[in-house]
């Protein structure tokens, strides 16, 4: 299973939209993806270590450099399929490149 983490203000709204959209679309493309949604302020190095990809809304200031690939997933929030597609493509490219399962 490929584990993705999304984060937003309360871990409730924007990050859940990203989670739902990524899980749905990646399943459609044939990948077994699980995405968690958390508060941005709860992100830390240890937490990110448990995931394969970090799907951020926009640039995130962190006191460390994430070791896992980071994808800009903000476009999912625009609710327009054409704008969200590059995000899914990027996630798929990372899955293929890193050989994630």
């Amino acid at each position: 299973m490929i584990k993705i983490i999304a984060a937003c203000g309360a871990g409730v709204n924007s990050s859940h939209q990203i989670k739902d959209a990524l899980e749905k679309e990646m399943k459609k493309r044939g990948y077994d993806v699980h995405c968690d949604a958390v508060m941005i302020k709860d992100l830390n190095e240890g937490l990110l270590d448990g995931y394969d990809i970090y799907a951020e809304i926009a640039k995130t200031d962190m006191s460390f450099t994430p070791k896992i690939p980071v994808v800009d997933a903000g476009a999912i929030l625009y609710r327009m399929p054409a704008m969200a597609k590059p995000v899914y493509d990027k996630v798929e490219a990372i899955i293929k490149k890193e050989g994630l399962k």
Partner: protein
Amino acid sequence: MLQAIIHWSNVIFNPIIKLGAAPIMLIVLTLIAWAVGVNFFHALEGGIKLGIALTAISSIIGLLTGAFQPAVEAFVKSTGLHLGTTDLGWAPLATITWGSPYTLFFLLILVIVNIAMLVMHLTDTLDVDIFDVWHMSFTGLLAIYFGANLLTGTLFVVFIGIMKIFNSDLMKPTFNDLLDNWDNPMTTTHLNYMMNPLIMVFNKIFDVVFPWLDKYDFDAAKLNEKIGFWGSRYAIGIYLGIFIGILGHQPVGTIFTLAFTAATCLELFSIIGSWFIASVEPLSQGITDFATKHLNGRVFNIGLDWPFMAGRAEIWAAANVLAPIMLAEALILPGNSILPLGGIIGMGVTPALLIVTRGRLIRMIVIGALELPLFLWAGSLSAPFVTTTAKKIAPNMLKGVGSHAMISSSTKEGPIEQFLAYLLGKGQGGDMKMLMFFFLAMVAYVALFMWYRHEMLKRNTEYAKQGHKVNPDVMLKNKAAAAK
């Protein structure tokens, strides 16, 4: 004829209204989502989720107030502080507001206003943050609670709605600057940014009097890392349970129960909050599809919920530092009845501070401390409304505690708008003095916004001079004025 209509609408609607909030909202939300073109079963899924979320949140409110109200009463008695209002944070307030069919009415009106503004080229922002319409509905319902009627309440909501959309255009270049990305459509009409004009006044004072303070700014990301889990939701629940328990002279066992109950409820509020958003999701998508289909060819900015800025560490550093400051202020502030708990991490406060100060942390904290009393007062003012409305959804809530026991939120967005709603309601209720204050306050509100608008146009013109792409609509028309 009219009699017959009234008779039949009573026959049809009364049994539905008697069912209670959760079934009403199941029916109303499903039908409205279906009406904007969502597949019926998706619409129904949203409606069912809303019913579940309403039921869940009312039982968690019951759990929290049931455990806390006796301790809070003892706290009030032993300390002499009149802080009998339990602070639940934003999620229960959102729930209570989404439990009212009026919220969907205000949503409909505001979507029409937004589309009309786009068609008339008054804005470039298409708001897709449907869930957060509850902020506007809350403000309108508050005015109605205090005595406004549906017409004036709606006009008031429309007025604030228009101002918010103007503000989202004005802020757009600043968002680009803070995200360091000049090619994205993200903006927001979130109500918390209507504090910007007032914050801008303080920021100006800072520019003139204390500019040297800025050099003491520290690294927000590092501070947040040090605070770590000590600033998490459940840790805060634990502290406040212990705080109230000790000052209320509770036995040790009860103190533990309070601490764990608070932590449990704060965690559950946010989980249930996500169910809410999921329940409105089909409707949000339906409205967006409808709007984009009918406005094809236009390039817009897209109004999202505020957290696309949440990656900026200053928001969290300021909220963490302001939490204990708010607790101290709550204890000494005259006229405040709220004991901060669920809302103590002020996410309804700090994003606006970030935008106006552009991330100068000391300013965010100082201005935040200065404006927090407004939030506490507004929360105290709206507590009777929140409590009354919540009782309709959760009739068993606050059972067995004193009648003065109330619930509210300490950092609800839009405190100034809540004061305006109060003045409007009281004024329309027949208090001429309040009505006069309402008009004076509206004049001051608009005047302050116009000054703020001018400041933002100046800022945006500066961005353009630095070579960034800025929409000419949000720049000064007269470059000479910028140079002055």
